[in-house]
């Protein structure tokens, strides 16, 4: 069981992950062949719109999908152990211990009827059965202190509704880190918070990552968050990875028209205020009836530049020429460079 990965082995490795939900309306292909890996001490940002499969991916890593209603294939290796097809009870022992999760809305993610300290202590005791109640409570108070909650002793005895939004998310982080997990998945941890609090929470996560040397997956639709905290980026669209690379590569020289769209639709502080933002037209596709070929083609301005390839053939992730930077697009490299310079480079944060 306890295979110790070598130092440069990624702690989490996901290979060709497919997650499908059979429903009455048809098969929902929520995640369709996604691969990525994260080392300890590194942060991977997964970016995409609602319904792009990013949350489903994170839930699969924690083994939180109901196996009766979900079809999962591929490989999810956590510290050398494959989660896919693993016994429920064995995954449970990993959850909260080796891998933990922070959720979007801390108010609804914390139980309204239990004191914050009790909830954190509970997470500790389940994986440390020999620990006494007092030890677990002390550990909970220490964690609250560690995530920057003043008067942790007193705060531990309060209920979630007595906390402010930012404090609640800190408590949530304290709870997820109470067992010192090697992998932390943060699912839009700052979306429900004020902008000023967002920055504090991201700083806190970075601090804690340095301290605990954990691997972090940051799921977000906010490119600002990714730019601040991530080392690598994976852009997802309709359940597929469409662009991946280092933050530098994806933000400075994005290759996929969808990534361009994301960048061009975010206002920049430093840019020309007169230039309009360029929104991505249309809506994300239905995951039951994906568009043929490249699933982004109905919303892509450049679909059809290569005959009917975009409509007929699913593009594969291919190297852009730069090490580690991959894109799934039918446009030629020269086309992409030209179009980016002409249409995108001056709008939004793409500037």
């Amino acid at each position: 069981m306890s295979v110790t990965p070598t130092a440069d082995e990624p702690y989490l490795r996901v290979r060709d992950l497919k997650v499908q939900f059979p429903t009455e309306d048809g098969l929902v292909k929520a995640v369709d062949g996604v691969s990525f890996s994260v080392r300890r001490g590194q942060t991977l940002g997964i970016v995409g719109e609602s319904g792009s499969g990013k949350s489903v991916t994170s839930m699969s890593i924690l083994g939180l999908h109901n196996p009766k209603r979900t079809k999962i294939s591929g490989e999810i290796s956590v510290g050398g152990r494959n989660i896919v097809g693993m016994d429920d009870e064995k995954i449970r022992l990993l959850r909260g211990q080796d891998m933990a999760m922070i959720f979007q809305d801390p108010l609804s993610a914390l139980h309204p009827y239990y004191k914050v300290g009790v909830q954190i202590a509970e997470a500790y005791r389940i994986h440390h059965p020999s620990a006494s109640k007092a030890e677990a409570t002390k550990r909970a108070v220490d964690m609250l202190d560690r995530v920057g909650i003043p008067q942790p002793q007193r705060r531990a005895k309060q209920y979630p509704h007595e906390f402010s939004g930012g404090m609640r998310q800190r408590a949530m982080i304290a709870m997820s880190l109470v067992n010192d997990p090697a992998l932390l998945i943060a699912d839009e941890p700052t979306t429900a918070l004020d902008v000023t609090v967002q920055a504090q929470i991201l700083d806190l996560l970075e601090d804690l990552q340095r301290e605990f040397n954990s691997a972090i997956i940051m799921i977000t639709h906010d490119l600002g968050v990714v730019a601040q905290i991530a080392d690598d980026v994976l852009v997802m669209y309709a359940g597929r990875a469409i662009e991946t690379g280092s933050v530098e590569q994806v933000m400075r020289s994005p290759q996929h028209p969808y990534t361009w769209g994301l960048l061009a639709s975010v206002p920049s502080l430093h840019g020309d205020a007169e230039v309009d933002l360029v929104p991505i037209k249309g809506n994300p596709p239905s995951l039951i009836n994906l568009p043929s070929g490249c699933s982004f083609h109905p919303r892509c301005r450049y679909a059809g530049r290569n005959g009917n390839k975009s409509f007929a053939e699913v593009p594969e992730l291919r190297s852009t020429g730069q090490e580690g930077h991959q894109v799934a697009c039918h446009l030629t490299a020269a086309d992409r460079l030209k179009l980016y310079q002409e249409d995108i480079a001056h709008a939004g944060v793409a500037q």
Partner: protein
Amino acid sequence: MVRFVIRRLLLAVTTLFAISIITFLLFFAVPASPAEVMCGKNCSPTQVAQTEHRLGIDQPILKQYGQFVKGVFVGRTYGEGDFVRECPAPCLGYSYRNDELVTETLKRTVPVTVSIVVGAAIMWLVIGVSLGMMSALRRGTIFDRIAIGVSLVGASLQVYFLGLVLLLLLVYSTGLLPAPSYTPFTENPGKWAVGLILPWITLGFLNSALYARLSRAQMLETLSEDYVRTARAKGLTKRKVHTRHALRAAITPIITIAGLDIGASLGGTVITESIFGLQGLGRSAVRAVVELNLPIVLATVLLAALFIVVANIIVDVLYAVVDPRVRLS
């Protein structure tokens, strides 16, 4: 908390006063005279007037109401001459019909209704809630489907149908059970239970059906809450997730509804009492209405209102105990 309860109790007293006034007014709005009803067909106007005088209903309404209120707090004396009845406080009146103080009637009828309701409530809460919770956890399985099917049938049945069917099957055809009857619990607990088992089953089953559906829906909703996902993400066992996290939250609204249901049922389970021939509060109230027996009607209405008001207060307090977000003020 204490202040809340005191304030609510004061409010309850006001409510009861208002209800007593309305009942009084409604009663005198009825064109028939209780004296005529009592006297029978061949009554001379003089006799009717005499009876009215003896009952005190020849007085103006306001005065009668004043006397009633006075009776409640300090007691009163009815009649004059050779017809004198002492009615000590709390005097709820004197039954026109059977020469009895209303409080005496209530002493006979209330324990019957309370026994029926308490037994049935225990049944429907235990069976209904556990059935609902189990089907929520086994959603989509055969167990769930059968439970939901049975409770759908149960929820659409009526007391007077199921009660009669059970009477026919268990009492009259097979003789498995004796005909329902009431024996005071203090006298013979065994006989008390045997005599009431049919009304318990009838009321209990029908309400179980409703409570099973309610609990199932509540539990399903709670299971999809974010904090249940958090509990699972922590690595808690299924059992802990379901009991400590989901059940705890799902049960709260059920407590509210159960409290109000029990409060309302205590005011009289007329149909159940009638079918099984039990002399409870509800049945005596219906008879009192037919006989224009104001003191009994008034007392029953007030008592039923009291049950509901008190149930409301208890539910509110319980809610605050269970859910820390609720602060009573």
